[in-house]
């Protein structure tokens, strides 16, 4: 099973399950501690300059936007990022906070390309290593398993592999070629959930994306949540707990925290605001103006929600959400 090929991409974070074990033992707690705090406190405490950061989910869906805005307000610099979220990652890049990106996809699907990514990549300002969507999810899964890599059959033969930090080996059981994906244990993960208790026991509705894996592949984990529920409710439906409390460091109550993205069953994405943002993102100056108004210009999520249209807008996007 010797290594046949290695992608030329930089491995931003060398897999090291042994170090992770020691770190998690020292820093994670099984204590039932109330972890509720606001965005400001959570980001101050748990996000640091230079951190390797990851978010969930994808596109404009269930994105931890209120946390991303607070990171920008606090100007956390030099971030390395796992680029499988989309909108919340893009605004961090737009604010000039990201130096290195493990990228899968950054764009708006049918709404088009990301101007922010184009500028950052074409200027050479952003160092990018390539992966596929599944590869990044599997890298988190490897970390969640507590092992240094996972073998897969994707990425092989492509430039996506050549510009990644994966390896090709020969399988000792079958002789076939396998792509080995290095595990990614994030310094900090951000996930927006439907509900959780004060300890961080969290439930999600609908597809779970890669929340399960990312929660288990984060040294520090910040949850933002539409709603805080009682622990009795958690204990009644323990089979609904996707993220258990001992993985969680902070619980931030953030209703409409995914705005302008959508939140399954609760509210639909705010097309009007999203298009306004995308239009602004065409040029550096208008991007800056957008950030000045909607990010730097507000103190917290409540002020932001007021600014984007308050109750009227929130009721409107709520009314567009489909039930089950």
């Amino acid at each position: 099973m010797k290594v046949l090929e290695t992608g030329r991409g930089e491995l931003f974070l060398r897999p090291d399950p042994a170090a992770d074990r020691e770190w998690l033992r020292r820093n994670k707690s099984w204590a039932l501690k109330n972890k509720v705090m606001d965005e400001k406190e959570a980001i101050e405490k748990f996000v640091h300059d230079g951190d390797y950061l990851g978010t969930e989910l994808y596109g404009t869906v269930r994105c931890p936007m209120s946390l991303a805005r607070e990171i920008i307000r606090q100007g956390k610099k030099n971030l390395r990022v796992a680029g499988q979220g989309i909108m919340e990652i893009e605004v961090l890049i737009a604010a000039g906070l990201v130096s290195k990106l493990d990228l899968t996809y950054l764009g708006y699907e049918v709404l088009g390309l990301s101007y922010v990514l184009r500028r950052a990549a074409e200027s050479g300002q952003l160092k990018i290593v390539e992966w596929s969507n599944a590869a990044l999810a599997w890298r988190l899964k490897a970390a969640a398993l507590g092992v240094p890599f996972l073998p897969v059959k994707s990425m092989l033969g492509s430039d996506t592999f050549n510009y990644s930090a994966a390896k090709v080996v020969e399988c000792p059981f079958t002789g076939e070629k396998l792509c080995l994906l290095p595990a990614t244990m994030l310094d900090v993960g951000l996930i927006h959930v439907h509900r959780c208790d004060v300890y961080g026991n969290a439930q999600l509705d609908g597809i779970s994306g890669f929340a399960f894996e990312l929660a288990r592949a984060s040294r520090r984990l910040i949850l933002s949540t539409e709603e805080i529920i009682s622990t009795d409710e958690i204990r009644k439906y323990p089979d609904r707990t996707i993220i258990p409390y001992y993985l969680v460091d902070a619980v931030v109550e953030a209703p409409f925290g995914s705005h302008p993205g959508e939140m399954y069953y609760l509210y639909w994405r705010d097309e009007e605001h999203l298009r306004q943002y995308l239009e602004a993102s065409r040029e550096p100056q208008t991007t800056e103006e957008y950030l000045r108004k909607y990010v730097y210009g507000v103190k917290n999520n409540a002020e932001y929600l007021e600014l984007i249209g308050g109750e009227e807008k929130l009721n409107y996007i709520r009314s567009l959400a489909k039930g089950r």
Partner: protein
Amino acid sequence: MEYNPTELLICIASRQMEDRTSAFIGTGIPMLAAALAKKTHAPELAVVFEFGGIGSLLELLPLAVGGSRTFYKALAASSICDVMEAAQRGLIEYGFLGGAQIDMYGNLNSTVIGDHDRPKVRFPGSGGANDIGSLCWKTISIMRHDRRRFVEKVDFITTPGYLNGPGAREKAGLPAGTGPYRVVTDLALLGFDETSRWMKLLAVNPGITVEQVKENTGFELIIPDKVEENAPPSSEELRLLREEIDPGRLYI
């Protein structure tokens, strides 16, 4: 009946899928093509979205591959790993792809034009495309057909086609029997020769000549003696698209 180029692409793409199989669906044309197939010849086509939506009825058009409509009334709302692992086990028949460039072996570029580290143009990146192109049995690309896009050599192989020819996928370790199946463009329907793995013209679109296809392709295509002409969208196809599938005209 009049139709626009998008409607034509959707209809031709939709006809490529067999019933009682599964297809990895992206937003946009593939999703409309799948919805149309389900309402015509393939009612039991199972649509799969990469972040976990499986078996939706497609009553509502998704705007994003992770969006709530990908699992509205679906049979399962799972996770990206579950779905990608199903593809890795060989359970997903079709995958839809797009890109900025395609070459004669069906390799696709959706990453960069120019040098990777200082690109002339930066595109979104692989997303699920590399996985779909690696793991699904048959991939169907949907492309605008011109010489900037149909090139001798792609600047970057985001998603593997037949790489540099017969046997290359298997040699690279990709699952045997997988690879590009069809390319659907505004000019023609293309396939790949079984032996040489070169792109081959299968049928031209209504009103398009073989010459036009050749002129707009930056490499030599295999042109068989007999080239079919794709049937235009039927009035029933157009009715379904306009009245049932996308009445809000989000895409068409």
